[in-house]
């Protein structure tokens, strides 16, 4: 049992570290470090521009999308090298969030299902951050139940004509392309009538409307399709096989092993270490200490669970669905930690923004946290995944399984 790199890993780490040290946009390091709570904002710069410039620099030097094949703009690295890169990139990795959907999900789906000429055309600019991609899956009627979507695609000559609406689409407002899951046959059970495409987000008939979130920020969008035409050669996979194609995408979603999971704990511990309560230092208070200790062991448990996964990668093993606990534990923890930090602030905890304690860091965390527990699968879906895929318990009973889609009753969002 040790934390040492193999000689090859050590060499890779040294090379990566030297390059990052010489090239990273260090002027933003402190801001990026402090915005690790789902709120990446730069005061005097446009974050998208900074992110694109950093990604381009990495791509030009061969450090973009490390595990992708070289011909598609990657480096052909092993999974463990990718983890080492993430560790070394540290706070600058925050900038990659702009590309996480494209690099983590759209790219791999394109690699698995697109024509060779499309891969060579579209993947390198995606890897280098010149083009941004989004993923158009969720709909008002289909969030956790993705296969319940209703956006129609109808064949018209060599094209498909798309009508419908997507929602919760991260980054659609600055995306150039998207992968789109549609319903091509409503007369068969819901999983069987789906087809996947990719499209140019500037196509006529695509309208992106940002959604203002509870936090006040707008990271997500509604996307409307009115008679949008997509050529058949931009279809990914067979007609009616969209569900299987989307599973490839969703499976790639949990590729974030090794990336530090934010729990809010280091921030809370630091805060409590200097905070004075009415009766003395917070850190001397019995109740505060008990709360901190309980969160401390969750945070360290997640950290070392992730290290065990990295260790498996290092040995060439593939970590399994057991790693879905990260988001499940961290999501509700961020929410609880933020709530508690405000409780410690007493009545003044209600003040948010620049006038608040620590420039409103915990208030911002509180307002963003509900999203963390929902995006990429709700807590309940994560528990189902653990129960079914890790513990081998039966799947939920699905009453709509064998019913043609157009016969399933619908209501609500």
């Amino acid at each position: 049992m040790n934390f040492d790199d193999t000689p090859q890993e050590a060499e890779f780490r040294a090379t990566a570290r030297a390059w990052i040290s010489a090239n990273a946009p260090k002027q933003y390091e402190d801001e990026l470090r402090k915005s690790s709570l789902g709120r990446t904002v730069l005061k005097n710069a446009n974050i998208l521009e900074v992110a694109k410039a950093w990604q381009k620099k990495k791509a030009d030097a061969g450090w973009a999308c490390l595990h992708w094949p070289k011909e598609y703009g990657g480096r052909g690295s092993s999974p463990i090298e990718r983890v080492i890169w993430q560790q070394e990139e540290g706070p600058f990795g925050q900038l990659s969030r702009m590309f996480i959907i494209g690099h983590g999900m759209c790219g791999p789906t394109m690699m698995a299902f697109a024509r060779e000429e499309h891969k060579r055309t579209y993947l390198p600019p995606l890897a280098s951050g010149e083009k941004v991609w989004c993923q158009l899956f969720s709909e008002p009627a289909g969030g956790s139940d993705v296969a319940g979507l209703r956006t129609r695609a109808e064949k018209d000559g060599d094209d498909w004509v798309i009508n419908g609406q997507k929602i919760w689409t991260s980054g659609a407002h600055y995306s150039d392309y998207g992968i789109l899951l549609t319903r091509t046959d409503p007369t068969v059970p819901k999983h069987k009538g789906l087809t996947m495409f990719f499209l140019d987000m500037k196509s006529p008939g695509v309208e992106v409307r940002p959604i203002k979130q509870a936090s006040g920020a707008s990271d997500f969008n509604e996307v409307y399709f009115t008679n949008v035409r997509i050529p058949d050669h931009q279809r990914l996979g067979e007609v009616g096989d969209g569900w299987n194609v989307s599973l490839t995408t969703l499976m790639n979603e949990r590729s974030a092993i090794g990336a530090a999971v934010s729990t809010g704990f280091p921030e809370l511990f630091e805060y409590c270490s200097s905070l004075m309560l009415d009766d003395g230092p917070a850190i001397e208070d019995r109740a505060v200490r008990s709360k901190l200790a309980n969160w401390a062991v969750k945070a360290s448990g997640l950290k070392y669970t992730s290290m065990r996964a990295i260790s498996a990668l290092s040995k060439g093993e593939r970590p399994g669905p057991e790693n879905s606990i990260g988001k499940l534990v961290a999501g509700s923890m961020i929410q609880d930690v933020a709530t508690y930090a405000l409780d410690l602030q007493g009545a003044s905890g209600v003040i948010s923004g620049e006038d608040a304690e620590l420039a409103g860091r915990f208030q911002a965390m509180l307002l963003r946290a509900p999203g963390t527990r929902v995006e990429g699968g709700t807590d309940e879906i994560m528990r189902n995944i653990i129960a079914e895929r890790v513990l081998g318990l039966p799947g939920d009973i699905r009453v709509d399984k064998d019913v043609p889609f157009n016969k399933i009753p619908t209501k609500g969002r």
Partner: protein
Amino acid sequence: MNFDFSDDQKQLRDQARKFLAEKCSPKAVRVVLDGKAPYDKELWKGLAEMGFLGVAIPEEFGGAGAGHLELCVIAEEMGRANAPVPFSSTVYLAAEALLIAGSDTQKKKWLPAIASGEAIGTLALFEGKGNPSRKNIKLTAANGVLNGVKKPVADGAIADFAVVAARTGSSGRDSDISLFLVDLKAGGAEVKSLTNLDPTRGQAEISFKDCRAEPLGAAGDGWSILTQVLDRAAVLCAFEQVGGSDRALEMGRDYALDRIAFGRQIGSFQAVKHMLADMYVSATLARSNSYYGAWALSTNAAELPEAAAAARISATQAFQHCAKNNIQVHGGMGFTWEFDCHMYYRRANAMALGLGSLTYWEDQLIDRMRKKNAA
């Protein structure tokens, strides 16, 4: 990086699991649970023959000299099997105290006897209510003679010797405390069995009345040695707790697959699935924290105090959580004497107190984290 046990260590784990599955069935555990024996003597002998008792004891003192990672692996299996033997008191507490502070003569006398299964040892620290603290130690030692009462003492009624924490000063400092070795079979100590939450591991009251004792470690070093012993035992117990958590989860999972109600396997209900998923989450966090503790213990790293406290808290919570919800999954059957669920529930709650309660370890963890941050 290899943040995992080696193939050899995993092989040892398989060997221990197989041995315990054979020699330590729930039926065997019940002999002790039902009060028909104070501990499983046959199993204890078998563990000695397998070399498990002395796995971390150096070869020169009759052990296998393998190391603490190997001991962690075995500890996990002892917890999984709910073994009714004085393993933790003898191997984690008494042997570790000897390894840390014993003279050559003391090591030569007791360590080979532990490894061969001839001697059972324990640590006599507590004196009624309260957690490990200097001021809670009132038993006095003067001129090598002890006077006072210790309780609860784990496996005190079957132990051959005890490491006893005694007061030798009144300065209000750590140096007030010294440790002593007492041969419990030599007279001077009166032992009384106490009923306790987990009858598969006994507890006792030991009264020392002008009892002769030899010092263990230098006078005034007692508190510092105790802290080290407790930290090391915290990691080792955490592995027992992880093993127990896993077993309780497994029992709950199996029952949820087996039991049909409302025309379905109860494991198909989300309420049950999610309860089991949460058990898995707490067991996994505990395992990962314990691995870090194992690394710190085996390398004697400066991180050990913090790692030990984290492993202790995490594993205590996980075992209690899994054992309690295993009964819940089993419904009414889980609450019967006949089903094995309560054995793990008892063990989980007894182990939560044995080295000091969560309150104590939470305090330790925060103090240690502050110290690290200040450094």
